């Protein structure tokens, strides 16, 4: 009896969790923050505020396509994924490869002519298209490179900027 009551008390909490964390049912924890650009050389790694983006977006599908099982609005995706349930793979890197143009990736593509999503962007392309696209469209959030990730010293050298900026040539001044 006692245990029944405590279970009943848990139900609203579980419902709340189910609403907030749709992937929880699949044993996948929804992270509050995600470290991005771990191996980046030109830009520092950043902590992506996942919790905040969950609050400000309408549906998980705004970023995660159909993988979380929430409604997909893209008319193109609806053609096949109207009734698609949640998938095992939810993370970006689960589908989008970090090296889309390597010889191996191109060979894999050649050997899978029946795959529908052949024109799938790589991890970097997918994330930038998603982030910059949404930030530009909604006119909220940063759209410049350093707006999201600070440039490293190596990056400054690469882009000839900051302390590596081209110096005005002596002798060419005046006149």
């Amino acid at each position: 009896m006692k245990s029944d009551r405590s279970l009943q008390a848990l139900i609203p909490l579980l419902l709340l969790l189910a609403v907030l964390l749709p992937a929880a049912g699949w044993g996948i924890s929804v992270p509050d923050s995600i470290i991005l650009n771990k191996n980046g050389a030109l830009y520092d790694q950043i902590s992506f505020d996942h919790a905040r983006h969950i609050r400000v977006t309408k549906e998980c599908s705004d970023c995660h396509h159909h993988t979380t099982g929430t409604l997909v609005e893209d008319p193109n995706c609806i053609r096949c994924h109207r009734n698609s349930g949640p998938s095992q793979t939810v993370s970006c890197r689960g589908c989008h490869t970090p090296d889309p143009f390597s010889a191996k990736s191109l060979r894999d593509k050649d050997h899978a002519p029946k795959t529908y999503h052949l024109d799938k962007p790589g991890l970097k392309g997918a994330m930038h298209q998603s982030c910059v696209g949404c930030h530009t469209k909604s006119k909220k959030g940063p759209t410049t490179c350093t707006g999201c990730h600070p440039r490293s010293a190596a990056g400054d050298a690469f882009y000839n900027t900051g302390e590596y900026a081209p110096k005005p040539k002596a002798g060419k001044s005046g006149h």
Partner: protein
Amino acid sequence: MKRRDFLKVCLAGGAAATFGGACGTARAGGSFEGYPDGMGVLVDTTRCIGCRSCEAACNKEQKMPEPKKPFDDMSVFNQPRRTDETALTVVNRYEVKESSRGQMYRKQQCNHCNEPACLTSCFVNAYTKTREGAVIYNGDICVGCRNCMIACPFNIPGYSYSSAFNPLVKKCIFCYDTRLKYGKPPACVDICPQEALTFGHRKDLIKTAHERIRETPDRYYDHVYGEKEVGGTGWLYISSVSPDQLAMDTSLGNEPIISNVKEFLGTVPMVLSIWPALFSGIHLLATRNKDHHDNDTSTHTPGQEDGTP
């Protein structure tokens, strides 16, 4: 008589070279659609955000000189730029009325034509179209005539005017030496954050381009620039607006540049080799009697006079 034999040999040799050569060129022109495994890049201008990362990557990969302005300085977009000896690729900004964004960017570099006009125009064969699809350039044999700069329909090759002793033609070589020949994408494709540049087999990229247009017709203008232009190019462009709005020349036609000059060039060996021999022969024939007369003057003059009634 020895001189006449020499001229006969010249005439025969010249004719053989001309007709043999003419048949050879006739077969080569007009129908080459690129190597079957040739690589290319699909430039999707709807994805480009004008970050200039490709310019920075190219600068480092090709060991180009330090730029005048930092690569994160967007004031360079205030005036259109072209590729030159210091920059093998440049991104330009275009004001576009139709686009919701108002501004669009387009990266430009060598388009790596299937039948390159630069290669056609080069009389020392400094250019090579490689099996991988790159149009590469050998500075060691270049004589600096700059015909390629005039021939290129896209105004791409630059010239190192600043070098007094060893000026070279400078153009994008698809990172052939350092990447493409090892099966790797060029540096600009590698760095592009938006994946506005898609690297792959040219034949696959054409399918990809048409598929993107078919799937999202609202996003694209229905044309793949470079699929057919000047006989096809390794680099292809799709956009949300017509190509002319991004300063892409729509008057080039689909024939390779070589087709425009093939007939004329066929006559060049004839002019150079047949004409001297032919006209020398005519001259010799025309002056034959005179020669005979001159030669005979010393020995047979009396005989000739005898024969005269």
